[in-house]
């Protein structure tokens, strides 16, 4: 590998950008496919599918052959709300490999006793989210039921283009949320990116079941092609 290619590759990885390193294992020739440049590449569908799957593999001859090393940043999960559902969500999300952060300004909820072994910030979303590096590889859930806490978080997540954004609440609650976000200046297409009511419709009852429904929906957003999600 050329040193300048390695340097570029490492800079992209450090900046949490997804890249694919294509190697001709016979000759050693290599090139880098950046996620942002896939549209202009030779095989956009293949490269998009590789990044969605997040797995490196040997390519078939009709795919160009050689080896595709797929490098995708570790996914993050930001939960607004140190609530009962979050208590169930944190360990499950960890099992799936997410770096989890819980944000809730209500100090009665955000206690280390209720949330051991996880990054827990008893602060307002507006104060802490800018430093959390919320990005395209972040899933974001607003779970407090309190617009004062949830809405600023959702607006931040929409601006940062999170791959998944979900908000707890009934259809009625969400309709009021849509009104507030519209008043805040967000357009309909942007607001429509919010999954609400949150989670796949599996009839979830308990906090743990709701956590499963949410993580299933997040997994779909990460792995499925947009038209299938």
């Amino acid at each position, binding site marked *: *590998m*050329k*040193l300048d290619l*390695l*340097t570029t*590759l*490492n800079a992209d*990885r*450090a900046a*949490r950008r997804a890249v694919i390193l294509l*190697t001709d*294992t016979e*000759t*050693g020739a290599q090139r880098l496919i950046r996620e942002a440049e896939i549209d202009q590449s030779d095989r956009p569908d293949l490269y998009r599918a590789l990044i969605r799957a997040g*797995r*490196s*593999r*040997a390519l078939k001859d009709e795919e160009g052959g050689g*080896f595709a*090393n*797929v*490098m995708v*940043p*570790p996914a*993050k999960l930001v939960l607004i709300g140190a609530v009962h559902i979050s208590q169930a969500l944190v360990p499950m999300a960890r099992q799936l490999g997410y*770096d989890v*952060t819980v944000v809730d300004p209500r100090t009665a909820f955000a206690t280390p006793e209720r949330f051991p072994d996880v*990054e827990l910030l008893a602060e307002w979303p507006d104060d802490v989210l800018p430093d*959390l*590096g919320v990005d395209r590889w972040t899933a974001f859930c607003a779970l407090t039921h309190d617009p004062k806490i949830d809405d600023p978080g959702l607006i931040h997540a929409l601006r940062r283009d999170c791959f998944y954004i979900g908000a707890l609440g009934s259809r009625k609650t969400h309709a009021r949320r849509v009104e507030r976000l519209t008043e805040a200046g967000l357009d309909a297409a942007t607001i429509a990116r919010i999954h609400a009511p949150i989670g796949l419709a599996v009839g979830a009852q308990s906090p743990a079941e709701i956590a499963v429904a949410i993580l299933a929906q997040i997994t779909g957003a990460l792995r499925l092609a947009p038209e299938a999600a």
Partner: protein
Amino acid sequence: MSEVATTPIDDPLMLAERWRGEGRDVALATVVQTWGSAPRPIGSHLVIDSDGNFEGSVSGGCVEGAVIAEAVDVIDTGKPTTLEFGVADETAWRVGLSCGGKIKVFVEKVD
């Protein structure tokens, strides 16, 4: 935030860049194919210098010795090579994978 994948200490690609920057001759080994119960996933790296120092893992310890020896040759010649290891291969007995899996490792020089 735990950014394991981009922490230079345990990230072979970051280490390869740093070692090369220090003027060391460096090779990079990558698992490019696995069959059966391979110990490390495809895409795993091992970085090696010409003195045989290494970091990372391509097999959890089973075949690293053989990869390192080959990497020193790759550093000399500059020519990349692909190595195969597996219990099915009689000659690989001494450096085979006890798990019964089979792996293919691509070794290249960083230059």
